């Protein structure tokens, strides 16, 4: 997965066991830099910075906020997720990935420094409310697992408390080093899922659906709780049946009781991502769906088409896993009502629903929900 052709590292980074381990796993010897400029310049000089940046690793420390709130938007309902910002960008190559357009330039960064993470997380662990934290917002959580001690460090760190859960979201099957850790159910291993045809055509370098589900089953066998994200769902001829088969496949591998939550969301994108997809994935037709401009200025499928798809999946979830929290990432009242018959419209209502699911499945302090 992480197989860089060039590695850069801040020259003032301490040679901790974390860094020594990382370097021992990487082939090119890191080139020491005083600041990120040489990395940016190298990537910007490439004809395809988005593709090239996947092969250049920059080891540094996070100089901004390590813990951030998921940005969300005002009109669509957000789950109030918290992001642990431990790295940026990704080595896999999904046609629809927003990270292609999000960073200028895109840089595969590893934010080192367990001391920094401890300092940021300890107050969260002593807080008075449940926190759901994930590392998969600006990177794939587990592309780092084969080369870094970070995922294991975080799993063990979260295992020591009962006020926060860590969600490691991935399209890989890189879980082996985590399986035997004492996780105390405070880490949710989660997989972003899609149909086999969409994985094959739109998700270069990711694990197959079957491999992801087998990994999920393996995680469950080691006592981990798991979650799944159908995001993005693509609308194409035959998609309803194809996504239903994926849902059925989930519960052929894991029991609903082991699933903390499942999110669903159809493909949406910032308008300028379209030209990037067209240039980098010329055979992809995903930007040519029946999109309209949403109220957050992102392109979204025409709402009745979204609702029809959600209703099919919603019915299947009710049938196969009635006790699992299924939620929308960034949808509005009409979509919630027409799909699930309720709308978590009050402030933090969706967050509360997911906190409750986390408390129930992962043994968090339920008095804080």
């Amino acid at each position, binding site marked *: 997965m992480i197989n860089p052709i060039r590695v850069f590292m801040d020259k003032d980074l301490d040679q901790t066991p974390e860094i020594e381990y990382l370097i021992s796993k990487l082939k090119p010897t890191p080139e020491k830099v005083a600041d990120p400029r040489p990395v940016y310049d190298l990537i910007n000089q490439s004809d395809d910075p988005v593709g090239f940046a996947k092969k250049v690793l920059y080891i540094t420390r996070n100089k901004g906020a390590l813990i951030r709130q998921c940005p969300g938007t005002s*009109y669509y309902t957000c789950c109030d997720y918290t992001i642990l910002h431990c790295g940026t960008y990704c080595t896999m190559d999904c046609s629809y990935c927003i990270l292609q357009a999000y960073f200028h330039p895109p840089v595969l960064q590893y934010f080192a420094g367990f001391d920094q993470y401890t300092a940021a997380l300890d107050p969260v662990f002593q807080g008075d409310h449940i926190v759901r934290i994930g590392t998969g917002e600006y990177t794939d959580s587990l592309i780092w697992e084969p080369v870094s001690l970070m995922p294991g460090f975080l799993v063990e760190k979260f295992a020591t408390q009962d006020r926060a859960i860590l969600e490691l979201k991935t399209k890989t099957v890189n879980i082996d080093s985590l399986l035997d850790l004492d996780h105390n159910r405070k880490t949710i291993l989660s997989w972003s899922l899609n149909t086999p045809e969409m994985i094959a055509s739109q998700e270069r370098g990711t694990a197959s659906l079957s491999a992801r589900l087998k990994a999920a089953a393996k995680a469950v066998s080691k006592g981990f709780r798991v979650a799944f994200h159908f995001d993005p769902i693509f609308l194409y001829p035959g998609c309803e049946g194809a996504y239903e088969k994926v849902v059925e496949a989930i519960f052929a591998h894991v029991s609903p009781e082991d699933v903390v939550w499942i999110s669903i969301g159809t493909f949406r994108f910032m308008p300028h991502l379209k030209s990037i997809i067209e240039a980098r994935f010329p055979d992809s*037709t995903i*930007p*040519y769906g*029946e999109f*309209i*401009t*949403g*109220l957050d200025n992102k392109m*979204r499928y*025409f*709402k*009745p*088409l979204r609702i029809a798809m959600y209703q099919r999946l919603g019915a299947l979830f009710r049938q196969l896993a009635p006790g699992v929290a299924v939620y929308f990432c960034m949808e*509005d*009242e*009409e979509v919630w009502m027409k799909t699930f018959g309720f709308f978590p419209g009050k402030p933090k209502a969706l967050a509360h629903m997911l906190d409750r699911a986390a408390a129930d499945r992962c043994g968090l302090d339920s008095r804080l929900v």
Partner: protein
Amino acid sequence: MPVMTFTDIPVSEVDLSDTGFRITGPHHDSEHLKSSISQYGIMVPPLVLRGQDKYIVVSGFRRIEGARHAGLSRITCRVMPAGETLDAAMAAVTENSFSRELTPAELIRATVLLLRFMDAQSIAENATSIFNMPLNSGYINTLARIHALPDPVLDLLDQGQISIKACKHLVSMNAETRAGFLHLFSQIKASSGIQMEIIAWAKEICALEKISVSKLIQESPLGITNGDGTGQGGSRLGHRDMGALGKQFKAFLAQRRFPALTAAKKQAREQIKALELDSGLQLAVPENFEGIIYAMQMEFKNMDEFKTRLNRLAELADLNDFKSLVDR
């Protein structure tokens, strides 16, 4: 600075067939100019380059054509010495650029003319002095690539049927797709913005349906031929008809590209029409049906009108058409 002399020369010694320096298109209407020359003669002497046995026109093709038309046997020209081709090219461009804004096709011809003598970077560095506007080297190269497109493109540019922006997109297409679009734009008239929309939607439909642009056009209202192979948009049509065809074609694409949205909009329009709201009441559905807020605007001139329209609004709540529109 090119050296030139004012010389009275026989019109017959000017070679109008050598169009190497010509920037204006062949479709330029010069009837008024011909009439003016017949009455008043040539006000600004054309610029010619001394050739081996004839004079080559650098600037003033239409003036010389007008002189011939008026039956003049000799005209005063500014004559450049033989061999000064770079100076002649520069003069041909600057003379036109500083007397009026070049049309897109003229800009392309002028650029390609200069590229015979200098590279894009040099042109870009001197663009404001030559073209009376800045041009960067990337744009200059794009103009050259547009010039290399098949023949109809400059004609279409001359006739305002395709924009440079649209041509830029054609440059990166394969020959078959490009030919399809050139054929399309020869049949319709649309603004630059709509041309771009047409190109994008048509390309997207073709990608989704795995068909060629020609096939898509065939399946459109433009594909209905008149028996002479010209289609509805045959050359006999005037601009107004071509404009209508452009609108018709765009509507065809919108329906095919966004079938559910188009159908929903049509249904909403019909439902609103069925409500028979009077002119002072305007109902707006959420844009693209994404939001959930409907808006009703009421205008009134006096209390009576206010009450009448308020009653009408109250009646709406009981109408099934209104319910089905709002409770979609």
